[in-house]
């Protein structure tokens, strides 16, 4: 049994960031438990050809670890993974990382005021538990008939299998979301025949990517203020796009026009263009950026099937429209389990309540971070903490600040147990609903992974500007917590 003050579950951007900030504060009693053999989360798991970020790298990185050397405006996934690994090493996290530790259960022990964990590598206890398990970390594969008996190779884009030979093969990509638009142009270079199964057409806007010149990189290295200015500028530019999400007609039509002109200039074939035209309002699902995706469909060996996958039949892919294609390799670019997170089933709080039960009608958390009935627990990148228009790292850093604020408060107040009130959590949920009401992902007429099908609530995104998330949630406030949850240990006077 190992005891530490703080345990962080997951070593992606959130877990590593949390670790760096703890370490820099001079905290020693913490560990990061990660089920995989390496750090990196999303950027370790997604190694498919073409993987890259779609928020500019100088923004999609830690503010407290600026990197003058990003190669591109939108850097490739491998570079981001390396950035994370290097960050962990240089910040001295190796001694705090426990890799290959799959956390199986996390139970709150009320009497001892501790979290008790069982893992694939033994038991742990801690006072403070930080869930940094990600949100796009559980691949979702459609449960269609015949999937287990498929004669060829089949795998998810986030479980890329480099040993599978794609050259000269008949390849099918299921899905047309963010991963597919990056992957499809690369696959077309290798496959003899490529079939793309599209359930609903995405909006795609140009990717104005470019490499940073050696002079630019050297400048950013020599003058850190310049890098900070660049990041600030990129941030506020990205913020402007939020206006499109809340029904500002001028912004929406400008964005829609940009996507339409892009489609029309890149796809000349009328039927293909029609099939690639989205049927819902822009922004309802993630707006994709690619300058290479559309032209792929003009290639003679690439087929667009505007229909969802219905079944796999021996060596054949069958679409709902009845089309059949004989295929050697099926790649599921079908996204992730988002509204129901598997870690929630492993967490048991006060009175034996499971987090998955607490969230049985949709994820909620006060300040997007703390959950009533689950004392001393923090969730990063959980309910309503995502963005569709700006960098996830900004949100993650805001939540890390909140956690650090809570820890500082506890340290100064005789280590009370922190139990957020149900009232605070409910008030926050009402605010989320209010803010979501006029937003396009609830009004835009699409079937979006942002919406929990169990209650129709938008439980994934922060439904406002990123900067308002920080102004609302960046600082811990003890007012939202149960006075009777404190103090667990009486402080002698």
């Amino acid at each position, binding site marked *: 049994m190992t005891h530490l003050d703080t345990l962080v579950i997951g070593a992606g951007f959130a877990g590593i960031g949390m670790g760096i900030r703890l370490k820099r504060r001079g905290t020693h009693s913490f560990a990061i438990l990660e089920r995989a053999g390496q750090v990196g989360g999303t950027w370790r798991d997604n190694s498919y050809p073409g993987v890259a970020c779609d928020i500019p790298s100088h*923004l999609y990185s830690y*503010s407290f670890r600026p990197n003058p050397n990003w190669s591109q405006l939108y850097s490739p996934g491998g570079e981001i993974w390396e950035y994370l690994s290097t960050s962990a090493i240089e910040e001295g996290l190796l001694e705090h990382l426990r890799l290959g530790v799959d956390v199986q259960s996390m139970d709150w022990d009320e009497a001892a005021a501790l979290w008790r964990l069982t893992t694939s590598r033994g038991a742990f206890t801690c006072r403070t538990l930080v869930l940094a398990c990600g949100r796009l970390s559980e691949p979702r594969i459609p449960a269609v008939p015949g999937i287990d008996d498929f004669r060829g190779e089949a795998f998810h884009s986030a479980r890329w299998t480099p040993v599978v030979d794609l050259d000269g093969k008949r390849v099918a990509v299921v899905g047309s979301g963010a991963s597919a638009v990056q992957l499809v142009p690369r696959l077309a270079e290798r496959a003899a025949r490529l079939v793309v199964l599209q359930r609903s057409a995405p909006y795609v806007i140009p990717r104005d990517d470019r490499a940073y010149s050696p002079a630019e990189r050297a400048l950013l290295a020599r003058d850190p203020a310049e890098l900070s200015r660049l990041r*600030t500028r990129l*941030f506020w530019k990205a913020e402007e796009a939020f*206006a499109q999400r809340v029904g*500002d007609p001028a912004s929406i039509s400008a964005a829609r026009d940009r996507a339409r002109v892009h489609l029309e200039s890149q796809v000349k074939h009328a039927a293909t263009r029609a099939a690639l035209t989205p049927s819902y309002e822009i922004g309802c699902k993630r707006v994709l950026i690619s300058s290479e995706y559309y032209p792929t469909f003009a290639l003679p060996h690439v087929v667009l099937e505007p229909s969802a996958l219905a079944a796999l039949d021996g060596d054949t892919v069958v679409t709902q429209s009845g089309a059949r294609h004989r295929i050697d390799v099926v790649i599921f670019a079908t996204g992730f389990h988002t509204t129901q997170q598997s870690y929630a089933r492993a967490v048991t709080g006060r009175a034996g309540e499971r987090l998955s039960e607490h969230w049985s009608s949709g994820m909620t958390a006060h300040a997007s971070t703390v959950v009533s009935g689950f004392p001393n627990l923090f969730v990063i990148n959980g309910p309503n903490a995502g963005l569709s228009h700006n960098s996830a790292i900004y949100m993650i850093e805001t939540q890390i600040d909140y956690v650090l604020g809570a820890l500082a408060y506890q340290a100064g107040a005789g280590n009370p147990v922190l139990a957020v009130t149900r009232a605070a959590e409910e008030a926050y949920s009402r605010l989320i609903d209010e803010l979501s009401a006029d937003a396009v992902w609830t009004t835009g007429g699409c079937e979006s992974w942002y919406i929990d099908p169990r209650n129709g609530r938008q439980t994934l995104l922060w439904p406002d500007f990123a900067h*308002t998330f920080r102004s609302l949630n960046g600082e811990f406030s003890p007012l939202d917590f149960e006075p009777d949850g404190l103090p667990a240990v009486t402080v002698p006077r």
Partner: protein
Amino acid sequence: MTEHPWRAPSRRPSVVLVPGFSGRTGEDFPFLLPMLERRHRVVSVDFTTPGVRTLGDLADRIGVAVARCDEPPAVVGYSLGGVAAAAFAAQQPAALSSLAVVAGWMTPAPKLVAFAGLWAELQGERSAVLAAAARQALYSADGWDCARVPRVDDITTRLVALGSTLDVSAMTPGIAAPTLVVGCASDEVATTRQSKLLFGAIADARYAQIDAGHAVVHERPAELLAVLGAFVTEPTRYPAGALIGEDRP
């Protein structure tokens, strides 16, 4: 510890929005106006009517908008509209709850006078380069990628000429409302120094600076929204005399 303003809807005052040289809020605040309207009742001031000839006329137009609000509103003015808002705040201190002056000035800087002179001369010749020349002056090098061609018409021409005569240096001692002065780091029209002079002169003022040219409303609209949104919901969050640091996202 106070509640965050978002949880106290009472702290969402009406906002009177005052445009700059275009005379129209739709033209000057294509982003700010709809985004402020998500949280506040916004009353637009319009300077396009021909009767607007003096600083007093500008302030009167603001007075009409303020009178349409139930409670004393936040008055937010940009450029010429900011100077007019300052004048209004000095004349009727009790009529507003807070004042924000974005890219405004205390006295017309020589460069503003020269800008107005060039504008009048080119417009007199009906020169096709006026809009391009104005754009050069209004936008910063960093904001050039979002530079719009400014509207050139009789209204703008009249307001630019009027703007270059506006001087509120004698009035600033009468401004009592909590005030936010927003200066722009690369403002070569109103000039950053003039914004800072307003900050110096207005008793209950705090100062924020944005990395943009005079056309901050087009160059950095989201940052401006963040600064203004925070101010109107909690005007005295920063004390008088505070230099509000730039956000470091």
